[in-house]
């Protein structure tokens, strides 16, 4: 499956408002899950509640990949969670390629992204070897503690 195909699927999920979409083709399976926490996107919209102060919700799961999957999570996948409140960055600086993209194979200890919190750059590393199957946040998006960032299919 090409990256363009995956992009089309993401567009489809966005257009239809589907929370989750899974497609299998020639033995390759792609699952797209949209982050449902709309509040983070409303973050700077005038009049909208401020995500950081109004969303003190308990973390969905431990920030590190947890053995027991939270509700709605595929137990076959390892989910990478945000260990701190901050801003998600896909790359070390704006003019270089992302650390990882969907379909990449990653190793234990490989940096997946940065969460910035007050100029503390938190490098989020993979705790498993596997393939990135989903990314749940967009570049520069605010993240809550425990928010799911990536899903990895362990190898």
């Amino acid at each position, binding site marked *: 499956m090409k990256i363009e195909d995956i992009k089309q699927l993401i567009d489809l999920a966005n257009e239809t408002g589907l929370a989750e979409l899974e497609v299998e083709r020639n033995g390759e399976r792609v699952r797209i899950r949209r982050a449902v926490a709309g509040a983070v996107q409303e973050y700077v919209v005038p009049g909208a509640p401020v995500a950081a*102060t109004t969303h003190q919700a308990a973390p969905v799961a431990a920030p590190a990949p947890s053995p027991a999957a939270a509700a709605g999570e595929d137990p076959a996948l390892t989910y990478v969670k945000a260990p*701190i409140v901050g801003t998600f960055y896909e790359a070390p600086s704006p003019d270089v390629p992302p650390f990882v993209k969907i379909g990449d194979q990653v190793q234990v200890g490989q940096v997946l992204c940065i969460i910035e*919190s007050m*100029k503390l*750059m938190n490098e989020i590393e993979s705790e498993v070897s596997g393939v990135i199957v989903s990314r749940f946040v967009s570049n520069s998006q605010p993240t809550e503690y425990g928010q799911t960032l990536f899903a990895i299919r362990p190898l």
Partner: protein
Amino acid sequence: MNPSAPLDLDWLRRRMPDRELHWLATTGSTMTVAARLSADGSPSGTVVVAEEQTAGKGRAGHSWHSEPASGLYLTLILRPHNLGDSLPLLTLATGLAVKEAVESIVGVAADLKWPNDLLIEGRKAAGILLTYDSGAVLAGIGINVNHTRFPAEIAPLATSLRLTGRRELSREPLLVRVIEGVERHAALLEEAGPRAILDAFTQASTYVSGKRVTVDLDGREITGVTAGLDERGFLTVRTPTGELVTILAGGVRAL
């Protein structure tokens, strides 16, 4: 100690005999060197200092102008215990330490622009960037000490301790003050908890409340009046519509 000469390592090693100190004439970034040392197990308190950086790092891919032998360009490795959620407050703690060190040595009043830019007379004299990786915090600190001029693109925004204090400074005592101050503030955070740092920062910075600012939230700008730090250390800004916005990351500018 000669202000125009490279750092006096003998003096520094006598002054801090138990500290792992790495000096480099020139390097890309002290952060990169420190990351390698940290991965190899260098202890908390290890310092990497360079006379010159060819790729000094700032936030969001910005560079840090690192003129040879004029500034202090250093990374301190910290291995905090038990900080958990208050880990990002280390960034405020580091700013407080740099402010105190600079004020005590130069004798001029400095300000902190949230989260931790050191301003003197409204211009940036020091920048701080922290990275957290595998249990270690790398506190990167760049201080403009004896610069007499800056590249045109940053000249209106930058200053140095020499330009504001009207005299050339030996960098060694400042280096010691900064390192020991950051460790002391980090210990305060660990022992006394977030409130001690939040209160100290609120006292030390004119940016925390009542300041008219614009904030660049990665391309989108908001304008308002600062309304204090929340319990995690994030700056809050009251917009003209009355909304309270919490700034997680972003460039804050006074209006």
